[in-house]
């Protein structure tokens, strides 16, 4: 499963937009199997934390399904 790293910029319910370092962005839908819940997403968005998202492309949707979402451990060092 591919992984993307970036910052969550927009959150609506279980949907979020991830902006990567090169300026592009991608819309994700949080899978029910993900270790985080929809109510955790606004906190990550407000913190502007760098996260990594493991995902698969959704069928017939212009979005991807996020199966795993974790904060980057070396966030402090990278800044």
């Amino acid at each position, binding site marked *: 499963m591919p992984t993307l790293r970036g910052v969550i910029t927009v959150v609506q319910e279980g949907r979020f937009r991830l902006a990567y370092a090169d300026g592009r962005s991608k819309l994700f839908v949080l899978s029910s199997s993900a270790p985080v819940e929809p109510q955790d997403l606004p906190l990550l968005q407000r913190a502007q934390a760098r996260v990594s998202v493991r995902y698969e492309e959704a069928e017939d*949707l212009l979005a991807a*399904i996020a199966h795993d979402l974790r904060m980057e451990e070396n966030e402090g060092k990278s800044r």
Partner: protein
Amino acid sequence: MGVHPRAQDYPESFLPGVIPDESELTVGTKIEPGKRYGFFTDTTLCIGCKACEVACKEWNSLPADNMGLSGMSYDNTVKLSADTWRHVMFVEKVDGATGMQPFQSNWLMMSDVCKHCKNAPCLEACPTGALFRTEFDTVVVQQDICNGCGYCVPSCPFGVVELSMADGKAHKCTLCYDRLKGGLEPACAKSCPTDSILFGEVDDLVERAGKRVEELHERGVTDAYLYGAPNTPGATGGLEQLNAFFLLTDRPEVYNLPPAPTRPANRLAPGLLAGMAAMAGLTLAAAAIFSAPGEKRR
């Protein structure tokens, strides 16, 4: 329409922050908890621009779906779904019964949405309480509570609620709950260029809609009527009133709306009684068979 007096407080194009109670400027309604808000969709004004669909998708971060052409006129959204909370319907009437010139079609366009029913069947069916009625009298699904049981899906007489295949939860229009809390009118109504979609307090909208029907009748559009306002088609079967109601000019079925929607809960008591009567009948029959004399059973 004149400029709202409050608009004169904001002469600059670039503002330092969000305007408090912005809806008062854009639609003349101050959004306050405890009041009932909804939509009045006047289909005679809809031009099928789909601005409402786009605004809804953009604000709610809903992904585009149903890629490709549907073959249904200009309607490529096809229906309301977990990822499409506004759907502009295109009904092309080419039967010649419309008084149009030959080879010209008459278009009926309607922007469909969740009706936020006064007695919402989806809310009644939800076993977890994920569907709840907000302080603005709208019906919203709480995503962190929804367990994806899907009871709300068949209970909706309008086919609005759908389970998402992506996250397994029920999704539908929230009437922009987050915007209402911030004093903003819903995105679809704000984006509508012809004011076909009007947002406001439901009682005000019903009054306004009644006047619009009278006006249309005077102008010769005698088939205009309201769908979903109190005591009109659509507000039947115990639903009482739809907070998002419509002005139509053809039968409801033409717009893919049920002519007489009902609450499934209405059928609960008759169904329960019928089941109990059937069980009682079967019990009596079994008792009669097994209590018969032994010789006859052989």
